[in-house]
């Protein structure tokens, strides 16, 4: 038996399980989303198909399959067809480097890792595949020959590339803390010590925000802002092509939450601080326990994202860009400097204090920084509350 075969077999089993799991999760996340939306808005939500509406995703899937696959005139046919695939494929291949459970000892002294592929580039692979999703959105918007799609595609592209930088910076802080690119090793360090959520709270917050933005989720869903752009880049899409876009988005959410769990919530760790924790090595029942802990954490993260979606209002585009470029990127760069300085000094235990101290310093210094003019302008419309009509200046409009 070649030495790589056990890992390969494990990898294929994990891939088959998780692929179906994520596809099913995507379908049921849509149902969950509708339920959460309904509860937040004091409604009932889908409850007709099956008990508590549990069969709704299957009915939706069937319906989408039977719908007409329509293509309007003037589209770029090749790109129009390829765009949904470009959106779904990168989302589906991202999860392989997530460690779903620890190491399985199948023979004395021989172990296999319960993950899709145990590659040495580790988390860089996930960053690479996650950022490929922007092609689907951009191409879909371009190919549709529709002004709404075009604007939606542009906005989504600008947004995704903008939020990739703070995401990379937050990830860099984690790598500096962990000293490795291997996700399994990152988890193991959190088992031994504190969760990185505690060591790097600011990086975790940055990462979570970027995760929402990368998946085009509210409050960052400008690219499909219904009130302005109809459906954004998927205005002209229908049937399974449209469904692939949505599948891509929800799988992206699922994988992003799993990635967040690995990086900041310690995978299957149950003790957030230093002390006793579940082991890395284990037999089949330990693997099952670890797997269910990971899934539970993923569910919590996803649900948290959904609550954010249905509570916060959507950003305006200039606010979105301002948040990324003038808020999160400078903060990320400062985080990077702080973390590398702490690593250089050797104070890796005190990174949480560094993060909080940084936040305090930024908060104190913020008013001292030069302020830019506010893009929010009050357009003095006659008779509005901003410019009540007066006798000496009857109709003055200062735009």
């Amino acid at each position, binding site marked *: 038996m070649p*030495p*790589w075969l056990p*890992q*390969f077999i494990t990898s294929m089993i994990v*891939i088959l399980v998780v692929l179906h799991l994520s596809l099913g999760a995507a379908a049921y996340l849509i149902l969950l989303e509708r339920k959460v939306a309904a509860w937040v808005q004091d409604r009932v939500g889908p409850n007709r198909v099956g008990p508590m509406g549990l069969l709704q995703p299957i009915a939706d899937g069937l319906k*989408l*399959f039977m*719908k*007409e*696959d329509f293509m*309007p*005139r*003037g589209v770029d046919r090749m790109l129009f067809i390829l765009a949904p*695939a470009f959106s*779904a*494929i990168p989302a589906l*291949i991202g999860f*392989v480097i997530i460690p779903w459970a620890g*190491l399985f000892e199948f023979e004395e002294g*021989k172990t296999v890792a319960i993950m*899709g*592929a*145990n*590659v040495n580039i580790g988390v860089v692979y996930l960053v690479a595949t996650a950022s490929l999703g922007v092609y689907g959105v951009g191409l879909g918007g*371009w190919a*549709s*020959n*529709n*002004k709404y799609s*075009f604007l939606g595609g*542009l906005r989504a592209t600008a947004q995704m590339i*903008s939020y*990739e930088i703070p995401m*990379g910076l937050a990830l*860099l802080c984690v*790598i*500096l*803390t*962990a*000293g490795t690119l*291997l996700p*399994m*090793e990152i988890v*193991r360090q959190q088992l031994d010590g504190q969760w990185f959520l505690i060591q790097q709270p600011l990086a975790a917050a940055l990462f979570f925000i970027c995760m929402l933005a990368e998946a085009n989720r509210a409050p960052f869903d400008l690219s499909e802002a219904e009130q302005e752009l109809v459906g954004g880049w998927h205005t*002209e899409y229908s049937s*399974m092509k449209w*469904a692939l876009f949505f599948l891509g988005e929800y799988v992206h959410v699922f994988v992003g939450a799993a990635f967040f769990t690995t990086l900041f919530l310690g995978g299957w760790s149950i003790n957030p601080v230093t002390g006793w924790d579940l082991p*890395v*090595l284990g037999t089949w029942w330990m693997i099952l326990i670890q797997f269910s802990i990971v899934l539970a954490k993923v569910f919590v993260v996803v649900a948290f994202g959904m609550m954010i979606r249905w509570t916060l209002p959507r950003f305006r*585009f*200039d606010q979105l*860009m301002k948040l990324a470029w003038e808020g999160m990127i400078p903060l990320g*760069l400062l985080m990077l*400097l702080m973390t*590398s300085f702490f690593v*250089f*000094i*050797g104070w890796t235990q005190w990174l949480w204090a560094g993060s909080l101290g940084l936040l305090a310093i930024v908060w104190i210094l913020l008013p001292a920084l030069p302020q*830019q003019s506010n*893009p929010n302008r009050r357009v003095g419309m006659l008779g509005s509350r901003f410019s009540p009509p007066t006798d000496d200046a009857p109709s003055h409009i200062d735009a």
Partner: protein
Amino acid sequence: MMHARMHAMTSLPLVLASGLTDYLPIAILVIMAIIFAVVNIIGAGILGPKVHGEAKEQSYESGMKPVGTARKRFNIRFYILAMTFLVFDIEIIFLYPWAVDFTQLEPQSEESMIFFGRILFFILTSIVAYIYAWKKGVFRWD
């Protein structure tokens, strides 16, 4: 010279097979994902009804007749933003291997100082580039 963390890592019984067999599952998964996407697109195309019509084939513009083409010139800010993105993204990619190596060094040692100083210079230059872009109004969208 190696940090204590390095010893902990080597003690982990994690065997990384050398070579490309590690990537074999990824290749299979990519093929599976492609098949999934293609089957869905083709299947829906076969199963669904087909109706054509003059008004139906127009691109959607809130019910009005479409005016002109959609592929127009767009704001230059998007290009400038994309270029700024490239600068920072590539910088971050450069930093990943550095981050891994840097943490293996003994803290406050001379070697660590050199690593830290060089990357500090690199980061500070890109911070200057960032300030320049900010002042030049790359991030203004009003």
